[in-house]
């Protein structure tokens, strides 16, 4: 087995894999600017719903209205400047972009592999981080707020009921492109492995 793995990682990546890496790089770049996650609040008096879009670098959408509603239950206002993540996440995405572009350029599988592992760890950490924030917002309610609510934890994926609101949290386009980029990793690995064996 080892006699196969070493040359596998030492060999040049094939053209199809390199093209795919270019596609991955191309997909990652817009993720810096696309909304990554979206939280939608539905209630009778908001026929179009209220949506908060979370970007790599900021938060946009009906943030003011959501904060206005949240103040009734004593939830802390969502303010972009409170999130240190917004300062470094764009550069992380750019780093994955650089790994993918470099892997395509030098055609070395280890470069792609390191970038991929880095990317996966980052994804997992960010999801945990996101859920931690949600926990923090839902649990640390001001006891002097006009409306007293049992502390709750909104789900990072799925629907939570808060008062008259259905709060739905779901990946947005930025996450979709990152997910597709992530899928390219195993595809290249399997493809290259088979190619080696066939050779």
């Amino acid at each position, binding site marked *: 087995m080892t006699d196969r793995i070493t040359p596998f990682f030492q060999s040049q990546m094939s053209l199809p894999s390199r093209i795919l890496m270019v596609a991955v790089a191309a997909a990652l770049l817009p993720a810096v600017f696309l909304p990554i996650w979206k939280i939608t609040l539905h209630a009778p008096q908001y026929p179009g719903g209220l949506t908060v879009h979370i970007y790599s670098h900021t938060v946009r959408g*009906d943030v*003011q*209205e959501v904060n206005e509603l949240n103040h*009734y239950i004593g939830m802390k206002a969502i303010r972009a400047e409170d999130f240190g993540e917004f300062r470094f996440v764009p550069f992380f995405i750019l780093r994955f972009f650089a790994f993918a572009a470099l892997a395509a350029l030098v055609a070395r599988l280890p470069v792609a592999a390191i970038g991929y592992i880095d990317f996966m760890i980052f994804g997992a950490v960010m999801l945990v981080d996101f859920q931690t924030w949600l926990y923090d917002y839902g649990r640390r309610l001001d006891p002097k707020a006009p409306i007293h609510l049992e502390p709750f934890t909104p789900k990072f994926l799925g629907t939570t009921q808060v008062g008259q609101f259905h709060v739905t949290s779901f990946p947005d386009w930025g996450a979709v492109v990152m997910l597709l980029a992530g899928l390219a990793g195993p595809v290249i690995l399997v493809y290259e492995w088979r190619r080696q064996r066939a050779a």
Partner: protein
Amino acid sequence: MIHHGSGRGARLAALGAGLGLALSGLACGGTAGGGADVSSIAQARGLSATDVEAAVKTYVPTGKMDDYLMFASGGQSGQVEIIGIPSMRLLKVVGVFTPEPWQGWGTGAEETHQVLAEGRMEGRDLTWGDTHHPALSETDADYDGQYLFINDKANPRVAVIDLRDMETKQIVTDPLMGANHGGTFVTPNTEYVIEGSQYAVPLDGQYASLDQYRERYRGAVTFWKFDRDRGRIDQARSFSMELPPYWQDLSDAGKGPSAGWAFINTFNTEMATGGDMEGQPPFEAGASANDMDLMNVIDWRKAAQVATEPGKTVTIQGRRVIPLKTAVAEGILYFIPEPKSPHGVDVTPDGTRLVVSGKLDPHVTVYSWAKIQKAIQDQDFSGKDAYGVPILNFDSVLDGQVELGLGPLHTQFGSNDIAYTSLFIESAVAKWSLKDMKLIEKLPVHYNVGHLAAAEGDTKSPDGNYLVSLNKWSIDRFQPVGPLHPQNFQLIDIGGPHMDRLYDMPIGIGEPHYAQIIKADKIKAWTTYPGVGFDPGTMSVDSAAPQAGKERIERKGNEVDVYMTAIRSHFTPEHIVVNRGDHVVIHITNIEQARDATHGFAIDKHNVNLSLEPGETQTVRFVADRAGVFPYYCTEFCSALHLEMAGYLLVRP
């Protein structure tokens, strides 16, 4: 199409047919069991097939929008009403000449008082108006949905309403006139807003006895220059023209080939001065003696030119006026004979003809613009009036006459050369063809119809689907609500081969005169103000407006400035402590951005109520002249904790 069967049998048969129609529609929609219900509901409520058809044509279910917006004058209320068509639902009453507390119009908000103060005349605050003729701004003779103008007949004034926020932005006064009626009408690109006078008075505003009527009394027309970029009438570039002391009536502006000209009807060419107690014939008889009156034909483009030339205008009460003599000498003003006490003059959509309704003549008289132009060129005059104005030869300019019935007043247009004329005395609408100059049919209306308004009916391309009959009397149409009856707006379907009455809408806030109907999608009204701290007076964000986190109270001597914000469900600050005699200025911004999140701001016993729409900023100024404790609170039910949205003004002795 189902029509009004005379007998009971016919009615029942028609009901069956109509319900069949309704049933098949429901079957298509797949509503289980709905059909049977509709028929039994109709029967139980005593609705005929025609009624059901009308209901189906007008009903706009929740969440759906109307196709058209009608802007109607509010008559003695001094306001403007916005009504959806075909539902005939009242959407809004816009405060114009009269305080409208709901909108915070003239009840404390400084900016609104400034606009109302523009409308002061003779040193008086005028707290009402008699709005008559709304005019939507036009581009290339088509409504563009940007502005609305409206006159106050009682105190000759014109107001400008911005259709982005549907608020009145300007009021201009016309001291020359004694009541205006021939306005407002706009020229095809809203270059000018035309305002014609009604009752002749001395233009200089001085006293002159009625014995001097012919020498000293005059009519006038004012061409208000509209500055579209500023959204305001430019008074310095506006001008007026002296007219003989007949009583001017309605006006219209030419379009297409007749663009550049304005037409104003007159009555009382007899120059009757009334005096029923002095043994003179009353006005109603004295002003109706002549068989023919005179229509003013005015070359406004030339008039605008002449008004800028030195020595050709005089200044009366601060206004630039083209004297009658100059108007005649410059070839700006002509007369056309028109049958007996005319009311409306309406230019056809293609601008080639004018339709005049002679109130006391059963005809509409149609004039050809090409013939009028030729007669002017050829100096084909039948004479001059007492003031030297050339009168065009009636036969040379006549296109034809159509006998419609008694009391024709106003004409509106449908598509395909179809015209609709109101018949006041007959209480009917006459549909007639401009093509073959023939009456097609008449529809009774309830009752005493004044103006008509058709969908885009006085643009170059009328839509030909809806017509509203603006009836003066409703008599037995509505549940009695005391001796003062509402007016009755009747919606008529003119899309089919026959006119069908669809809906009666009671108007319980004044006697509307004219209305205009615009395709709803032409209006791009704001749903919230486009910035926080937005001043509707300047239509821009005020950088000095209070902002979230920067609320404060500043005192300089006895001047106290309060910078306040409003957001669900609190004002910041909630305590204002001042000393008796302090000059208090409260600046408030509604820092909301959500649609419909309006807050009110009322102060106990201070005659203050503001309406702060999302993003809006307003200022209220008063002297705290009485020591005491005065709650202030939000007057728009804004949230579950609306009642808690309050504060205290504490005035220390």
